[in-house]
């Protein structure tokens, strides 16, 4: 090994050493892997600052809320008791892309963070279709800055309790603030319209007009109106928070702005929820390859690689199902799939030729990028999970029917089971399957303005009644009128079994 070529092989970092490493990593990332990334902003922070970041979704600026205080306390506890060690987890989808380097990290770890976050994650943020469609990296930080200021001003003007009341209610609907079923083309059109709507102050005042016209319709048309009127909303609306923002007869302008803030931040986080495996997998895959490239070029020594590999191994470790609280590790799954893509492209077996004919002989870097940028978790798994990875991870399917006293294992890692396992694993990474499907079904515009929400289940799973009632109270608080929640199972286009929860607006606690 030509020791003259070596980058600084120290444990302690200095800004100069970091620069030297970044230059090399950058060269490899942009020249060998042709990664297109946002300009990087590497920020050196203390561990206390890291805890601050952890507690508010990792963002450098955010509005204040007690839930972040609770999260901070939990993080602090975990850190103090030695449970936390994810040094390379905070990177922001923004332009420039901000990555945090903890001051306690050794130099090798800083290099790892940079390769992983500032190049791996950064590339996904900039190129993945979901991020491109749903987030605006150029303006998010400005938006959050506006949000923080606006909410603080509201606290001054209207009182902390009032603001907390609205924020709490909005937070309970944080997973029902998306348009899932919308094509990317329609989405950008819709966002343009939304942006126009937002800018149009007068537009909001039209809500009052809307309700007045509804009242007029109710009074004047009588029976004639009944035929023409298709019900409101005409189609069920899955973005409950947006519906409330647009149509609530009860909210003041400033409250609607708060709803918009929560909705917009949730929309911003949505792609990250849908691409955990893709994002972490690609970033891990990148850091693994780039570090090896540094070693191959003689820029780092064995001691350096030892530390890197030790950390890497910890991160991609997958504990088996019988460990308490175990779930599929997105780092492990993602990394394994990407490594496998490389193998299939460069050194395929007969099984690979059968399962992935379209990948054979292709450039593995191109395929990896394609996989990372054109997919989200469920499509990524459905397309690229191979029998080999299924075997390596010993994946199996398990069915737990609540009416049954036994759990059954229909599929294991063999010829008969691969397809079913791949389908199920993809399915459970689709956020639509994890979140209960609840939509605004109807609003009594001609009557007492009761909102009816409908929960539809395909597999007979009902909602937890306690949390559902509490959440309906939040909806009622925002809506200003009674709320009814229907629960039903859908089978072959028919609805069966309807449970009902009713929340009266008069029962909702006002802010004190």
């Amino acid at each position: 090994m030509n020791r003259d070529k070596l980058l600084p092989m120290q444990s302690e970092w200095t800004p100069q050493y970091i620069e030297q490493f970044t230059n090399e990593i950058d060269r490899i990332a942009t020249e060998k892997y042709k990664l297109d990334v946002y300009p990087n902003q590497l920020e050196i922070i203390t561990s206390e600052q890291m805890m601050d970041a952890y507690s508010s979704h990792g963002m450098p600026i955010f509005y204040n809320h007690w839930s972040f205080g609770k999260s901070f306390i939990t993080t602090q506890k975990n850190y103090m008791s030695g449970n936390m060690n994810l040094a390379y987890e905070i990177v922001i989808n923004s332009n420039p892309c901000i990555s945090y380097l903890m001051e306690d990290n050794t130099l090798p770890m800083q290099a790892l963070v940079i390769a992983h976050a500032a190049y791996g994650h950064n590339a996904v943020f900039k190129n993945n279709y979901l991020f491109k469609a749903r987030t605006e990296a150029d303006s998010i930080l400005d938006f959050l800055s506006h949000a923080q200021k606006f909410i603080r001003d509201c606290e001054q003007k209207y009182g902390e309790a009032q603001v907390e009341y609205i924020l709490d209610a909005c937070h309970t609907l944080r997973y029902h603030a998306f348009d899932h079923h919308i094509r990317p083309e329609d989405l950008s059109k819709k966002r343009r319209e939304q942006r126009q709507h937002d800018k149009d102050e007068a537009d909001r005042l039209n809500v009052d007009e809307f309700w007045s016209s509804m009242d007029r319709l109710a009074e004047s048309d009588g029976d004639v109106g009944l035929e023409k009127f298709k019900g409101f909303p005409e189609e069920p609306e899955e973005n409950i928070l947006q519906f409330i923002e647009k149509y609530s007869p009860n909210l003041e302008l400033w409250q609607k702005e708060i709803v918009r803030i929560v909705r917009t931040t949730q929309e911003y986080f949505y792609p990250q929820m849908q691409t955990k495996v893709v994002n972490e997998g690609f970033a891990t895959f990148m850091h693994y390859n780039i570090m090896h490239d540094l070693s191959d070029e003689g820029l780092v020594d064995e001691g350096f690689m030892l530390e890197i590999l030790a950390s890497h191994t910890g991160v991609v470790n997958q504990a088996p199902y019988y460990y308490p609280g175990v779930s599929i590790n997105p780092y492990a799954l993602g990394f394994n799939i990407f490594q496998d893509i490389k193998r299939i492209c460069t050194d395929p077996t007969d099984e690979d030729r059968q399962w992935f004919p379209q990948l054979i002989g292709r450039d593995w870097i191109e395929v990896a990028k394609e996989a990372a940028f054109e997919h989200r978790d469920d499509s990524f798994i459905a397309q690229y999970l191979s029998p080999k990875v299924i075997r390596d991870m010993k994946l199996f399917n398990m069915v737990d029917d609540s009416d049954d006293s036994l759990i059954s294992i229909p599929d294991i890692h063999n010829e008969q089971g691969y397809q079913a396992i791949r389908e199920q694993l993809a399915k459970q990474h689709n956020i639509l399957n994890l979140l209960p499907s609840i939509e605004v079904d109807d609003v009594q515009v001609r009557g007492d303005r009761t909102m009816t929400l409908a929960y539809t289940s395909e597999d007979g799973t009902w909602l937890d009644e306690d949390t559902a009632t509490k959440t309906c109270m939040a909806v009622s608080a925002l809506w200003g009128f009674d709320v009814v929640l229907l629960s039903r199972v859908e089978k072959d286009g028919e609805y069966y079994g309807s449970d009902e929860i009713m929340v009266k607006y008069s029962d909702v606690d006002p802010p004190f």
Partner: protein
Amino acid sequence: MSNYIIIDRRKDGSGKSIPNREKFLKRQRRAIADAVRKTIKNREIKDINKSGVKIKINKDSIEQPVFNKDYRTGVRTGTNPGNVIFESGDEIYKPEDGEGQGGQGGAGADGDGEDDFTFTLTKDEFIDYFFKDLELPNMVKSTLKRVKDYKNVRAGFSEQGNPSNLDLVRSMRNAIGRRAALKLPKKKRLKAMAAEIEELSAIDPRTEEQEVRLLQLLEDYAKLESRAKRIPFLDDNDLKYRVHKKIPNPANNAVMFCLMDVSGSMGSHEKDLAKRFFFLLYLFLECNYDMVEMRFIRYHHEAREVDEETFFYDRDSGGTIVSSAFDMVNDIIDNEYPLSDWNIYIAHASDGDNWGDDISVCQDAVSKVLPKVQYISYIEVCNENGFFYRGPGHTSEVAEMYHNLINQGKGKYIGMTAAAVYSQIYEAFVKLFKRG
């Protein structure tokens, strides 16, 4: 090559989470107040002080609910890792808790998974909550939270400072030295040169020698004059300022004697009031002294020194002879606490009752102790119904005894108050601070 920058944010400090943590604590006010109350009941007074207090809150009040599927219903399918024993088609019994094995990353998973949420209040936060209960005025709160006393001592000199701290002598001395080092020409010399120049100039005609001399003088004079202009008489660098440093006052030690009547008439409510009172006094002393010792003395018809646990919780009964307690205090002070080294406080809690014949004896005992102590704080506690043992309007024997002493002019060292509820305990402290 893409561009990047490295920013060192460490000096920005952390604290973004402080408003969030405050909001969280505010929201839990009631829950925390309850927890604080329980903590005081169950913990030793000394323990409460160290590195904060652990508080447990029930999780329900701090969750943000969302719509959740109830996985005890319906059919749940999942892909799990690490299969080493199952074959396709196997069936297994469900584990006891009825939930399926393995898991899927669930959206909306908040929290620890335990039933209670625990966190630690710092000592200051704990004092805040404790006092909210007692409704102490802010002045008292800030006094109790105050760190040690500091005093200013001289600590050398510095180049910077307040004009009022300018040390003239040193500064001038420095100026002289600088001028000398830079060879500032002395005024005298310049004057002499100027005089000679004038003299020579007046001579007409001049000899060659004189001409040379004059030219030389003129040149030298010009040089010196310009140098003199360049070198200031007094320069910023000459100035020296006196520096003062704050050092903590070498704190003395304090000992607090806790005296409590444990006759049958003191119930758990009365004892609880007393405990809070003792605790507040202890905090006050803790903030002002390096070391505070506590001695616990219970008395009924005789006095006994005990540890804190026994002091508050042991059941006892009997008649009441107060003097026995003060005699014991006297002895302990004489034997163990030389007055030159110790500041002595006495906190006395009772329901006021005393054995009739003992009053004058007691008065004597207290009088003996008085000159040795900084302060005696007496608190008379009564039961929940608000009646003193003897009924309203009747001064208790003990109270009467203290009154007598106060009438004798010893009022400066005695504070008396009565409390039936927690919020009245602060009066004792107002009195304590009014004095000094």
